[in-house]
């Protein structure tokens, strides 16, 4: 039962403006743009620090996917929760995390969100409702359903967003989680960020149905396909799904079609896709450029305003990296701390 | 075949040693028994002779560094033997394999005759014994090799050790001293160093004597229950006798001209008096072991000698039987050689008791630490004129305070008091020393 979200015919005024211009005030929209910059520049900063040897391990960059993260989280409060993926920096920032503490985590410092125990792949900010990125593909799906079960049992009125990638839709956990969310009508929204590749394997080669959203019909929930690079389209689908969830009508599956510019992780040689393909997404369909010009078109911001935001984000990123560099390393003596809850 | 030269174990509790100087050079021709090098052990310098005749090659033992006992320090090649025939590594491997081989062939055939240390470990390592039996045997100073096992495949179990202890057999050669548990320092080095300002000190590395003194004293103080008794002795009669004896000393001819045959010190007389007292109270002339009391038949008196960088306790054997002049001359010789670190191990190991005299520094009274396997040590203060009350009148006498430390496991308070009273009796009636 998948359906393509209605694309608002863009008119400067009038009732058929795109959804977000009807639904959110201008300040909120400028903030959304700022968050997209913040995600992009955070990941570029992290990538550079990684190359300088300041960050070890690996990381999965979501550059190119910013509209999905920001569009989904636009209408959420800190009480609404998300579970995230190994490609989760954008989700974390979109949900409201402080980039300084994220950098600190990547640098392995005690001031990081996970006190240096998690790193990029487990980045989390519970205070803004982010229950954490996950190193296991599909690992977050049942957990999100459990969080939604809590919301229903405690009647909090909150919703839970479960981010996952196109790769996860072939995990058993995906099917078990969607089924349970549906039979119990839980307030959870499954958001598949389909960037075309599970590591190197394309969706076409790995998934029997053409769209991930097609899977929704097996679990009797709406499956919605949106252009994941268009903030307003993502936000509109998310708004409808949230309404449904809050009204006790159960889950929705949203598929955001998008693209990652960078490789799967830092070890990727990009052998499974062409330069032209990457080039085309970067030049023709960049989510930030598209959002900038739309905001200018609708008079929400001008070139100066954009420059101002970019500059302030640049400063925030610089300060964040500085904070991370100066923060203390964990003590080896505390190695076993946090394995169990410390008893009073 | 080339013969290896190892750093030998020459001292009871020696794990490492330092070569203080080589007396031969690479390529030198030596006869068997020629001096090769000198070792500075924990307590003394030791000369090591060549085990074979030939050419000295591959001198790997460097001067002034700690070398493990048993390590190869050089090779003696036969005349004309190619050096390549005996690479240093091959025989070294053979040595390393030795304990394992010994384990397989239960009775020990130590391959390296110059390494008695390897023999000792191999002998107990090859024995089948439960961990509990091993621990109990060690604590009782029993040699596992001498105990027969009743467990499967002859394994020695607890019951076998208990039976052996009852029989009083199977005494181990290296029993008591090594049984002492290692003491934990109260503060780590880092903790200590933090208390001092950087640059306000210089660090002087411990030499082996300092390390041995530290280890032995910690062992002694933490494993031996010390008990102390103090007494004042009047020594005017002793001083008078000493003067009389010294004046009567015959002259003998030496290289430096004519000299008196002896010159007694107060300390010589203290040694004699202490030995005599032990002979009078033989129950106090003992050593403690876990399995039995060792009752000595002679008084071998150690005498603490202060030397640069530490102290050492050479022993006057059978001091109870020796004349004052013999004790005096032996003491002079031992003290001189102690200062040049030329004492042999057997000259400072063992003994039944000891005397420590700090009177020459004016120390009035102090308590000394027992040097196991001794059960007592006598600390001697300065002889000084003090008022004493006799028959209701204050008189002046030369008084020397002495303190006896006893190992309470071996010498109880009353027994120690008896010994000290005997000492006082001899010291105050010094003519007794002459008969």
């Amino acid at each position, binding site marked *: 039962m998948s359906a393509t979200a209605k694309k608002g015919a863009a008119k400067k005024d009038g009732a058929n403006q795109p959804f977000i211009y009807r639904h959110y005030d201008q300040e909120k929209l400028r903030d959304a743009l700022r968050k997209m910059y913040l995600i992009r520049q955070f990941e570029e900063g992290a990538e550079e620090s990684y190359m300088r040897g300041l960050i070890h391990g690996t990381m999965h960059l979501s550059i190119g996917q910013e509209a999905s993260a920001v569009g989904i989280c636009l209408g959420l409060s800190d009480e609404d*929760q998300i579970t995230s993926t190994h490609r989760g920096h954008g989700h974390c920032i979109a949900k409201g995390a402080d980039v300084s503490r994220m950098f600190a985590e990547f640098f392995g410092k005690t001031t990081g969100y996970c006190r240096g125990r998690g790193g990029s792949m487990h980045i989390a900010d519970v205070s803004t409702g982010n229950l954490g990125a996950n190193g296991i593909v599909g690992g977050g799906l*049942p957990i999100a359903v459990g969080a939604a079960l809590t919301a229903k049992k405690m009647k909090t009125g909150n919703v839970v967003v479960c981010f996952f990638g196109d790769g996860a839709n072939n995990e058993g956990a995906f099917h*078990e989680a969607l089924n349970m969310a549906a039979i119990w009508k839980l307030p959870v929204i499954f958001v598949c960020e389909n960037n075309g590749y599970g590591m190197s394997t394309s969706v076409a080669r790995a998934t029997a149905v053409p769209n991930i959203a097609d899977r929704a019909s097996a679990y009797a929930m709406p499956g919605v396909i949106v252009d994941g690079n268009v903030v307003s389209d993502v936000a509109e689908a998310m708004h409808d799904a949230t309404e449904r969830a809050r009204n006790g009508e159960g889950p929705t599956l949203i598929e955001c079609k998008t693209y990652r510019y960078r490789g799967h992780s830092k070890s990727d040689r990009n052998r499974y896709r062409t330069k032209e393909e990457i080039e085309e997404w970067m030049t023709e369909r960049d989510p930030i450029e598209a959002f900038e010009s739309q905001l200018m078109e609708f008079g929400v911001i001008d070139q100066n305003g954009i420059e101002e935001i970019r500059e302030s984000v640049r400063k925030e990123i610089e300060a964040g990296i500085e904070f991370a560099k100066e923060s203390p390393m964990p003590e080896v003596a505390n190695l076993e701390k946090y394995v169990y809850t410390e008893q009073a | 075949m080339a013969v290896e030269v190892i750093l030998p174990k020459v001292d009871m509790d020696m794990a490492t040693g330092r070569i203080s100087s080589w007396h031969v050079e690479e390529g030198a021709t030596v006869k068997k028994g020629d001096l090769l090098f000198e070792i500075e052990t924990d307590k003394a310098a030791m000369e090591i002779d060549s085990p074979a005749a030939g050419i000295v090659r591959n001198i790997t033992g460097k001067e002034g560094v700690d070398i493990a006992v048993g390590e190869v320090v050089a090779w003696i090649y036969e005349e004309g033997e190619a050096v390549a025939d005996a690479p240093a590594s091959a025989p070294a491997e053979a040595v390393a394999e030795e304990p394992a081989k010994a384990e397989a062939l239960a009775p020990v055939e130590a391959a390296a005759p110059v390494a008695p240390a390897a023999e000792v470990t191999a002998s107990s390592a090859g024995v089948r014994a439960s961990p509990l039996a091993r621990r109990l045997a060690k604590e009782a100073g029993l040699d596992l090799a001498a105990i027969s096992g009743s467990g499967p495949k002859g394994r020695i179990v*607890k019951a076998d050790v208990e039976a052996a202890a009852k029989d009083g057999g199977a005494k181990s050669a290296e029993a008591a001293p090594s049984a002492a548990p290692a003491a934990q320092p109260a503060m780590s080095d880092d903790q200590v160093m933090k208390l001092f300002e950087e640059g306000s000190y210089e660090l002087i590395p411990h030499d082996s004597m300092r390390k041995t003194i530290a280890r032995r004293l910690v062992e002694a103080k933490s494993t031996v229950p010390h008990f102390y008794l103090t007494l004042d002795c009047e020594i005017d009669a002793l001083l008078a006798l000493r003067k009389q004896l010294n004046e009567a000393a015959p002259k003998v001819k030496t290289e430096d001209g004519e000299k008196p045959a002896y010159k007694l010190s107060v300390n010589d007389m203290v040694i004699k008096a202490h030995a005599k007292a032990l002979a009078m109270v033989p129950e106090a002339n003992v050593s403690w072991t876990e399995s039995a009391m060792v009752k000595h038949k002679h008084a071998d008196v150690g005498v603490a000698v202060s030397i640069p960088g530490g102290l050492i306790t050479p022993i006057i054997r059978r001091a109870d039987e020796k004349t004052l002049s013999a004790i005096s001359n032996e003491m002079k010789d031992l003290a001189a050689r102690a200062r040049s670190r030329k004492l042999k191990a057997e000259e400072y190991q063992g003994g039944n008791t000891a005397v420590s005299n700090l009177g020459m520094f004016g120390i009035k009274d102090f308590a000394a630490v027992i040097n196991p396997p001794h059960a007592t040590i006598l600390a001697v203060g300065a002889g000084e004129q003090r008022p004493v009350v006799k028959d209701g009148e204050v008189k002046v006498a030369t008084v020397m305070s002495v303190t006896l430390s006893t190992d309470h496991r071996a010498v109880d308070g009353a027994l120690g008091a008896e010994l000290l009273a005997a000492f006082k009796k001899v010291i105050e009636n010094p003519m007794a020393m002459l008969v």
Partner: protein
Amino acid sequence: MDAQVETATRELSYAQAIQEAMAIAMERDERVFLMGEDIGVYGGAFQVTGDLVERFGTDRVMDTPISELGGAGVAVGAAVTGMRPIFEFQFSDFATLAMEQIVNQAAKMRYMLGGAVSVPVVMRFPAGSGTGAAAQHSQSLEAWLGHVPGLKVIQPATPHDAKGMLLAAIEDPDPVMIYEHKLLYKMKGEVPEGYYTVPIGKAEVRREGADLTIVATSIMVHKSLDAAKQLAEEGIDVEVIDLRTIRPMDRQTIIESVCKTSRLMCVYEGVKTLGVGAEISAMIAESEAFDYLDAPVVRLGGAETPIPYNPELEKATVPQVDGIVKAARDLVTGAR
């Protein structure tokens, strides 16, 4: 005993004791709820939940689809967001389907997030052989989970402990895995009324003795006690320790006992190799108790085979009383 508030006791089966603990917990704390396959009107495969659904309703006694991985994950997600779920695996063997959520998520979430969350989930695993259910329904895989830092793994052996340790588990802020031997479910024992807890991480000396320490888990505690009774008639005085918790292990109780008896035997149903007994033996070898050992350490564990169907073969797969008696006798009399 270590119960906190013991009042009157009466005889209950192990299964009833667990059910009573869950009922008490649900009455005391509205965050507590049950999840599992066929735990509702069916009453659970071993009738442990029984008629709890009638008392507490389907919202709190939730039948799940046959989705062990998803179900375990839902329990983890609910726990991390403030609920106190108790998840029942129908057979402990089925937990292999849920290892991802147990091992990668429940055990590690607190650590990965630097202490920002805790995961107070309880999972129950009916385990063990003796029911003729063959290879895929009879395993004792508790050592798998005992290997994972972040989890606590318990094996109550009596109705009293089943209730008290389950109540302690529900209050524990960290994930607690409870291995329940299926043959124990019908075993009866004195169980105090009302609320009490038995601490996790504390072993219990079930019988004092001087000649040999047997450390046993779960049903093997009873078999070891039976064996100890027989051995007593031969003059062999056996101390039996009920381990109760395999992670975190109560090392001190075992060490003290071995220092006293100088002999150690481990008796457990899981496959002998790389199991709970290996951990106990190695722990003793590393401890001060080593110097008190007067005989080799002996392990009696499950055979190196899947659990067979044939009843005689099945019996031969795991330690039985006769085998414990013989091994203990050999050890004490010096035959091994």
